């Protein structure tokens, strides 16, 4: 009988220890909050995507606080509206750092604003994790970390991605037209596309650039129709791609294949004439991305919050995914460096990759950029849903690039 008592006590003790351990692991974060400051374009021309990033940030911070917070402390996100203006972004980051005295900062939305924030970060030696910086050649600060999956040479990697996908398809195009906005973050990638097409022996039948304030895409559509390309590369920003498609439909023309660089994904899905359009992305709501339980949970929460915020399209795709990945990066770095010190965080990031929902992010290249390869894939609008079609390892099960 004494042996049985001992073993019962042992089991009991073990169970108790386990319960206690579990309870401390599930303890709510406590102590003074870790304050993370950033701005987003909540009003102004960039507000549509700004809202996406706001929702993602809120989701992430809530999740953090439901678990262990950061280093056991609760997290508070201090968010300000930079109204899509770089000069406002600059001063607001200065406010966050010097007046609100936040512990860490997070990047804003879009290239010009990120550049402003980067300047401030540099002056105060703060680490800056960002997601939507479109001109890597301008990032000359060694404590900035891009978490958007873009390479340091997107004018090389994105065209390579797209043309590889086309070459592997059932009917590779022989002629190509490149039409692009002159907006900085789009223009140089489109020029890269021209080079890539030329190197692969494709015939360029049209090259047109428009002023980003352009409203009338009729003549451009007409010129495309005249040129009869097999494939059109559309370097449009925001709703320009939609306007071009509208214009082409009006004259009863649709190119056999077209790729859009940075479209507004929801509207392009729904646009009559958007069928089989191609675009670039780091994430879509299908395997292998949905094999990751973290991603699945995020998708669920995003659908919920997006609907509540009135978003017309609540599926997780590129913008929301890279936003989430930037927060994942921040959490991983702080936890990994076990510190809120910017230098420590930066050093940790330079040496350690992070497995985010968009893939493995690493920063061991010049100015923390990787050259020659990125995390982007090609997706296609198939029957009203975005489906990744290239590279094959990331394609939706059974999906292929539909050619005319």
């Amino acid at each position, binding site marked *: 009988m004494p042996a049985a008592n001992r073993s019962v006590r042992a089991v009991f003790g073990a169970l108790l220890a386990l319960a206690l351990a579990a309870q401390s692991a599930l303890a709510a974060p406590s102590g003074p909050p870790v304050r993370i400051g950033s*701005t*987003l374009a*909540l*009003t102004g021309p960039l507000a549509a995507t700004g809202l996406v990033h*706001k929702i993602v940030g809120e989701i992430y911070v809530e999740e953090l606080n439901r678990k262990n917070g950061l280093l056991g402390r609760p997290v508070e996100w*201090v*968010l*300000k*509206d*930079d*109204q899509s203006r*770089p*000069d*406002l972004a*600059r*001063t*607001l980051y*200065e*406010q966050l*750092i*010097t*007046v609100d005295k936040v512990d860490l900062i997070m990047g804003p939305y879009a290239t*010009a604003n990120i*550049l*402003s924030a980067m*300047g401030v970060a540099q*002056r105060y030696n703060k680490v800056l994790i960002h997601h939507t910086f479109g*001109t890597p050649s*301008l990032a*000359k600060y060694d404590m900035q970390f891009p978490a958007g999956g873009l390479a340091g040479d997107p004018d090389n990697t994105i065209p390579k991605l797209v043309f590889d996908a086309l070459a592997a398809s059932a009917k590779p195009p022989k002629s190509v037209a490149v039409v692009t906005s*002159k*907006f*900085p973050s789009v*223009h*140089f990638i489109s020029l890269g596309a021209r080079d890539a097409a030329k190197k692969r022996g494709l015939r360029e039948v049209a090259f047109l*650039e428009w*002023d*980003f*304030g352009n409203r009338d895409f009729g003549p451009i559509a007409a010129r495309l129709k005249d040129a009869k390309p097999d494939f059109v590369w559309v370097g449009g920003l925001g709703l320009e791609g939609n306007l071009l498609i509208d214009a082409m439909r009006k004259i009863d023309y649709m190119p056999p294949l077209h790729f859009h660089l940075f479209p507004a994904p929801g509207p392009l899905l729904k646009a009559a004439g958007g069928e089989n359009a191609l675009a670039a992305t780091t994430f879509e709501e299908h395997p292998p991305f949905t094999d990751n339980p973290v991603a699945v949970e995020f998708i669920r929460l995003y659908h919920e919050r997006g609907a509540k915020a009135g978003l017309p399209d609540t599926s997780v795709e590129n913008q929301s995914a890279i936003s989430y990945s930037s927060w994942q990066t921040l959490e991983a770095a702080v936890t990994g460096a076990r510190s809120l010190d910017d230098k420590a965080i930066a050093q940790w990031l330079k040496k350690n990759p992070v497995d985010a929902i968009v893939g493995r992010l690493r920063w061991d290249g010049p100015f923390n950029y990787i050259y020659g390869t990125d995390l982007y894939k090609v997706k296609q609008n198939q029957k009203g849903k975005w489906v990744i079609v290239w590279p094959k390892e990331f394609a939706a099960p059974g999906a292929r690039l539909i050619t005319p």
Partner: protein
Amino acid sequence: MRGRALAGFAAAGLGLSAVPFFGPPAFYESFLYLVFHWIVLAVSWNILSGYSGYFSFGHGAFFGAGMYTTATLATKAGVPFLWTLPLAALVAAAFGIALGALVFRLPRLRGELFALLTLAVTFVLATIVLNTPIDGGPGLYLSAVPLLAIGPSPSSTFYLLGLALALATLWIAREIQRSKLGTGLFAIHDDEDVAEVLGVPTYRYKLAAFGVSCGLAGVAGGIQAMFISYVTVGETFSIAVPLNVVLMSVLGGSRHWFGPAVGAAAVTALLYAFTAGDYAVAGHAAVGLILIIVILFLPEGIFGELIGALKRRRVPATPAIDAAGLPAPAAAGPGKSEGPALLEARGLSKAFRGVQALAGVDLEVRRGEILGLVGPNGSGKSTLINVVSGHFRPDSGRILFEGRDLAALEAHRIARTGIARTYQIPRPFAHLSVLENVALPAMFGRDAQARPDAEREARRWLAFTGLAAKAMSLPGELNLHQRKFLELARALASRPGLLLLDEVFSGLTHAEIDDAIRLIREIRARGATIVFVEHVIRAVMELTDRIVVLSYGRVIAEGDPRVVMREPDVVAAYLGKPRA
């Protein structure tokens, strides 16, 4: 007065420049830099558009020109940042002056057409910059350009640069407002044609104001290029700059040099008041609501209302000045019809789109006489006055004044020769006080007096015409009689040798006519030569030495009034031929 202001500026400058050295958070320095930046843009815009009424929608073009000058020179030519600033000013000013030189020559390009032109220029410049190697698309990146450490930190440096430029701009605006240039610009605002005829060199003044305005905007652009460190066409030439400067100036009050600064500070502060992430959209609406409420209840602008209230509070001190001290007008010598010819018109013709107003008029005006110009409506009397005073150029013919051909002179120079006129429907400068109205011709006329002397002269003429008590009033507060006398005082203030009166008696009561007749006799007694156009026959009979009768643009009779008015041709011209 100016010494006090200079001291005030210096004190403000010194006081504010000390701020960075107290180590405030950088945000406040950057925020204040932005306030200074918008002060410069709004105040500089106001120098042309607020003062003279030439509403420019293109301030963004000159701001952008400065921005790109600095960005290009600093990044492509390695010019040190501070040296690019005067070059930015020069490029922007040169651009503005070139545009103005072309545009200000065309009298029809006023009002909204000028606004349109300046807006179009912005688009043109933006497209050129976008499509040429100046930018070409990718934008210019200035992060590698070294910033001279003027203050303890980069934000302090911008703060100090912004402060210096804002103070300089405010000082310049103040100086202009108080100078002859300013008075001329305000006159142009109210009635450019009259201003020109009174001697204001409108073309030159507008050009000067435009050049200064653009130059200042250029420097502001240059500094801003370094502040945001990434210059793209879209951000630089957006509708934001031209729109905001208008809003700020109107909000603050555009008739005073300090008004736009108040508006700039208010709007910039409003922008930051609502940046919290949670109510961004509502904040945007709140800003709009605040703007509406402010301008509805403070129509002169925040500062404008303040100044207005202060002015009304002050009791105007009217020094007792009587007409006795009035100097005699030029060309003394009261000889009547036998005097030499002061003005000669030979074969003067003027047509307006098919209507021949003057068809070869020959007449002469003798020194010291009172000449009446009569004729039925449409005979060309007012046109003749307009042509002689410089309002219109004659199509053909010559006008000799004291032997000099007037037709070759620019309108504002005619005033300097000693000719003045009144308008049939009084055209005072509506926003200038009665005193300022009368002082203006003294400042711009033949004698070109300094302001204090001109104002003293003006007061004497106001006493002469019985308007001394109304010196501080606005013309809108006067009745017709008083406004006519204001016209008279204004015409006299430049001490003309020849005075042209256009129906000065119309609309006056019997007693008022007596008053006016007495006044005109006194004016002639002081040695002026007077030509007056009139329908009131009593005045013609009582005052004139000679009359000339016009009909359909030609002289049909001249001579003694009593004799001429009975000639059958003259009667026929007025009344038609009697039916047989």
